[in-house]
């Protein structure tokens, strides 16, 4: 990076640094009660202790496993459903209204139901994330596959391509961009559902850890975990964007 680019970047992200400094200052000089807002240095110290003690790793692993498993199910089932509906008209007629009916459901309403079915462990969180994240993927895949240009499909057909071949070489690639942005929405929802369900009904996971530390009154540790989860969500989105751009590089 050249020097000018570095300076430009520094100026761009300066407000975040200012916020951090304001936080540290407000807490240091007792502008706000330090139990309501522990200073940033204390939070960093607490984070380090949690990391060394293993709490962060243990609960983080539990959360990540739930997230990955739930999202994987949502993506596979959601994409298959969406493309199936776009490809095969009876599936569209039968399932379209169902998707339309369940799409606006505020997904958080599923938390108590999955807890009722599968209890407080991993199973209920995975089911919750799978159910809550499936429809955005379905809708993306459906809209994408439907918009694949008729002309392309016709020409492939007239050139003698088999149905499967058309699906793989024409419909799937043109469904990809919208499907990938549907998955991005799903990724955001998965974090919300994960944290919310772990805060409300769980015995492990980062959300549970936040609730536990909060009710213990160890607020510096609580802030440390809150910031960790927020940061994880941010990093996951950025990494996904990178992957998405690479996957769509052939379009330009």
């Amino acid at each position: 990076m050249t020097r000018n680019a570095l300076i430009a970047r520094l100026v761009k992200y300066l407000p975040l640094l200012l916020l951090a400094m304001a936080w540290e200052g407000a807490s240091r000089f007792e502008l706000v009660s330090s139990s309501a807002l522990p200073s940033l240095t204390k939070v960093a110290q607490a984070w380090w202790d949690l990391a060394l003690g293993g709490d962060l790793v243990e609960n983080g692993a539990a959360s990540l496993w739930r997230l990955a498993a739930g999202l994987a199910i949502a993506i596979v089932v959601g994409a298959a459903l969406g493309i199936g509906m776009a490809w095969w008209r009876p599936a569209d007629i039968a399932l379209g209204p169902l998707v339309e009916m369940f799409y606006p459901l505020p997904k958080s309403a599923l938390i108590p139901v999955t807890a009722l079915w599968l209890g407080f462990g991993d199973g209920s969180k995975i089911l919750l994330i799978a159910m809550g994240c499936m429809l955005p993927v379905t809708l993306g895949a459906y809209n994408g596959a439907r918009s694949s240009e008729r002309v392309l499909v016709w020409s492939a057909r007239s050139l003698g391509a088999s149905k499967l071949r058309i699906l793989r070489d024409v419909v799937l690639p043109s469904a990809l961009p919208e499907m990938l942005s549907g998955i991005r929405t799903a990724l955001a929802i998965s974090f919300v559902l994960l944290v919310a369900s772990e805060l409300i009904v769980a015995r492990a996971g980062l959300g549970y850890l936040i609730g536990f530390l909060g009710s213990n009154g160890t607020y510096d540790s609580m802030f440390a975990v809150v910031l960790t989860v927020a940061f994880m969500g941010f990093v996951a989105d950025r990494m996904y964007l990178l992957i998405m751009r690479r996957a769509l590089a052939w379009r330009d």
Partner: protein
Amino acid sequence: MAGLDDTVAGPGIAARAGHILARWGLVITLLIAWELATQTRLFTPFMLPSPERVFGRIWSDGQGGDLFINAGLTLYRALTGFFIAAALGLLIGMAMTRGGVLGWFFDPIISVGFPMPKITFLPVIVLWLGFYDTAKISMVVFDAIFPVITGTILGIKSVEKELIWSARSLGSGEREIWPQIVLPAAMPQMFTGLQVSLPIAMIVAVVAEMLMGGYGMGGAMVQASRMADSPGVFAGIIEIAVVGWFLVKGMALLRRKLLAWHPESDMPTGV
């Protein structure tokens, strides 16, 4: 999905009737499948209570007035938060496109904050504001404001420069250009931001109620779940789903009304 698979010429009466039939047919099929699943003992009544019990529960919730108190409180929290987020978000978004200190200050905060799961901060908000409505509404605002801001910025930035130039060359001043050209041209994307934001407001209000307890649809559901009262939980899901459905459909209708002049008025609403 209505609106997406209409043919270019518009659906005929037969097709439309078929559509309506398919939709209600599906709802009825679902109900029958649900009833059969409970009859055949595939699921215990605890895992899946019968439709009569769940709808009976909704009926008695309605008769006792609990349903309206809970739904009203949840709607009040979600909508108050949504309107505050909408007003603030539109203002901040418009201010940010003008550059200057505000743009510089908020830009990295929005781009870092947007992908973060804001709901994680709920315990912090509880710590600061307690368990009352202020805390719940603040959480809704904090979460629902981001799509409004980004929608506003996207909308204003994508206004065609030629439009502004021609207005300027015809002698319009900034005072006329903003309300007459920039804002109308940016409307569709601003509205999309609002359409993304409203379901978020609803989700967050329900989660906040679940975590903090008390009245409201989320609180009632968690209460039912703790008491192992499964008809109560399923009644809650249906009630919340119906309220959510009306909100989303209402926004789509409003879009069609407000943006009737715009080719994008019928755009499907991806969350």
